């Protein structure tokens, strides 16, 4: 795994796990891999994974059960909120990219609609 952006690695792992939850690779209420297994999979220091899990817990996306492990929340509203937030971030970054290419925001709906009609 390459972590290319300037963000701390634990934050990039938080994003990876959020993506796995939103895309259904990790399901509502499912147990996350142990810190060690995740460290081996992503080839990072276990302390970093611990920190990522801690951050996800602070955001109420996962919860820890003593001696059992860390689980994805089963609160539907939290999961919906997570999906909405991630979608929003993607759209904002898309809009910024398009602006850099010289398109105005008002032109974007038309471009998207045309692509949908063309079935792309």
């Amino acid at each position, binding site marked *: *795994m390459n*972590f*290319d*952006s*300037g*963000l*701390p*690695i*634990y934050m990039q792992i938080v994003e990876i796990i959020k993506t796995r939850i939103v895309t259904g690779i990790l399901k509502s209420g499912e147990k996350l891999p142990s810190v*060690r297994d995740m*460290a*081996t999979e*992503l*080839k*990072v*220091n*276990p*302390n*970093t994974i611990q*920190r990522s899990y801690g951050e996800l817990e602070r955001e109420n996306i996962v919860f820890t059960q003593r001696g059992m492990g860390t689980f994805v929340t089963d609160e539907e509203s939290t999961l919906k909120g997570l999906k909405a937030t991630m979608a929003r971030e993607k759209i904002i970054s898309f809009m910024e990219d398009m602006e850099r290419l010289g398109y105005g925001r008002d032109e974007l709906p038309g471009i998207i609609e045309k692509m949908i009609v063309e079935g792309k």
Partner: protein
Amino acid sequence: MENIVEIKGLTKRYDRKEALRNIDLSIEKGKVVGILGPNGSGKTTLIKLLMGLLHPNKGDIRIDGESPGMHTKSVISYLPDRNALYSWMTVKDALQMYQDFYQDFDDKKAEDLLQFMKLDRTMKVSNMSKGMKEKLNLALVLSRRAKVYILDEPIAGVDPVARDQILDAIIDNYKEDSAMIITTHLVRDMENIFDQVVFLGDGEIILSGEAESLREEKNMQIDDLYKEIFG
């Protein structure tokens, strides 16, 4: 947290050349520390001082509370930057030597590591590639229940497959109650396993800190920071 390694004002001269100048460094238990710098920056000198193979001109080193000597040697497991095994040895002989030498050697762990590294007991050191030798040396070093692991350039000159196995073995053998000190100039491949990094240039600490804090502060990965400092 308890410091397992404490270095204060460490200076080492060879003749008139200062190889290390006024080094301060504290390492807590459970931390993986990367000592980063180009060749000739003083990395290996620092390690030799920690190992008690060289004596400082000034300053103080404490490992597990003591100066380098009999006790510290017994708590440090050291991977030198070149193969430390005799070429006539088989994997089995090397294993036997480690068992005889070190009271903290864990047979079960060695068994697991050799299997993980895909090293057969009958293989001879003289017939091994550089990557295989490195894997064997590392497997033996990690099989000790030490308080401090010192790995000098563990992935230098090995192929990508062996490199991945070595990284996995290091991560899998991380222990909360011991510290790891790893020197490397291959920062890109190793930076994700460091808690703390020390940039060593021309015998001095140019920059040191928690890896994640440095990424946040400088808005770049440690490898980019390395290129900025030494490039």
